[in-house]
């Protein structure tokens, strides 16, 4: 229960977006380590290889090679990653894609804003709520939060 560090993994093919996310994560108050992969293939190789699994993976839906959705399916078909939260995000998606992601086991879906403060707000909330799942063992099957249409004004 001692606040051990939150371990975050980000899979994003766009260099500017990686920088953008990193900047937002750096501004969060929660102690964390951030690792980054540049596409889906690298992500899967990284996960296979690592002995320290991330608490949460932020996964871009559209990536070359192996798409975010394909990664999600691969991750959810392996029980080793059962307790890892998957947060999908995209700047262009349809409601159908969002629902598909949840049905295939995503825990969080974010419509990526281009605004630093908005993204910060969402990521702050996602990491803090996720921390409750890490520390309190809440039910993972029911762990679905949709930020696609919803602008968060929950807690902070």
């Amino acid at each position, binding site marked *: 229960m001692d606040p051990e560090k939150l371990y975050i993994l980000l899979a994003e093919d766009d260099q500017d977006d990686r920088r953008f996310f990193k900047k937002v994560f750096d501004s969060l108050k929660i102690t964390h380590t951030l690792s980054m992969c540049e596409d889906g293939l690298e992500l899967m190789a990284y996960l296979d290889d690592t002995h320290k699994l991330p608490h949460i993976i932020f996964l871009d839906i559209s990536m070359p090679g192996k798409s975010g959705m394909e990664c999600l399916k691969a991750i959810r*078909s392996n029980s080793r990653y059962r307790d890892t939260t998957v947060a999908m995000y995209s700047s262009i998606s349809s409601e159908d894609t969002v629902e598909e992601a949840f*049905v295939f086991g995503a825990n969080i879906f974010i419509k990526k804003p281009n605004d630093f403060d908005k993204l910060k707000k969402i990521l702050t909330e996602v990491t803090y*709520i996720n*921390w*409750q799942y890490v520390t309190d063992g*809440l*039910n993972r099957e*029911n762990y*679905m939060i949709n930020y696609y249409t919803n602008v968060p004004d929950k*807690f902070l």
Partner: protein
Amino acid sequence: MKLYLSYNFDKACRTILQEQLDKFNFKYTLEGPGIVHFADSMPMHDYKLLQEQLQHYGIEIVDNQKAIMVQKIKGAILAMLAEKDMPQIKISTYLAMQLNENYRTLSNVFNEVCHISIESFIIIQKIEKVKQLLVNESLSLTEISFLMNYSSVAHLSNQFKKITGFNPTVFQKVLQNKRALTNNIN
């Protein structure tokens, strides 16, 4: 002029500790280097004060007193939510009474350790329970709002949407699809 000193660290630390501890009304004994045994439990307020004063001398309390307190708060909240008839008093009064500590202290420690407020924690836990009732017991929203002490179905739906981003019925549908898929795969 220069003076050359030799220190007895153990004795120095013991003396500092004793001087600081004697400022309070504790019954204590020093059990070897780095361990103090207290006859009674310590109120959080004194604990914080002691921690502050010791920090001044570079002495840190190696303890997860705060984590223990947070566990107690969570325990009290979960017990309260599990009861059929939830207490009609304010949650802050309830927790202060249960834990024999003022609510401000409880709330600050909780925020520091958990990164969210006690109020948010309660809402998250309530919504967790609503999710279970919704998908496992297939209760109607009317039944759930009654069971969970919501003033109306609208209030329940709004809070659900605020926390999960879903309308309760959509959430139910998506989860059923997810379960169907998992069953197909296995």
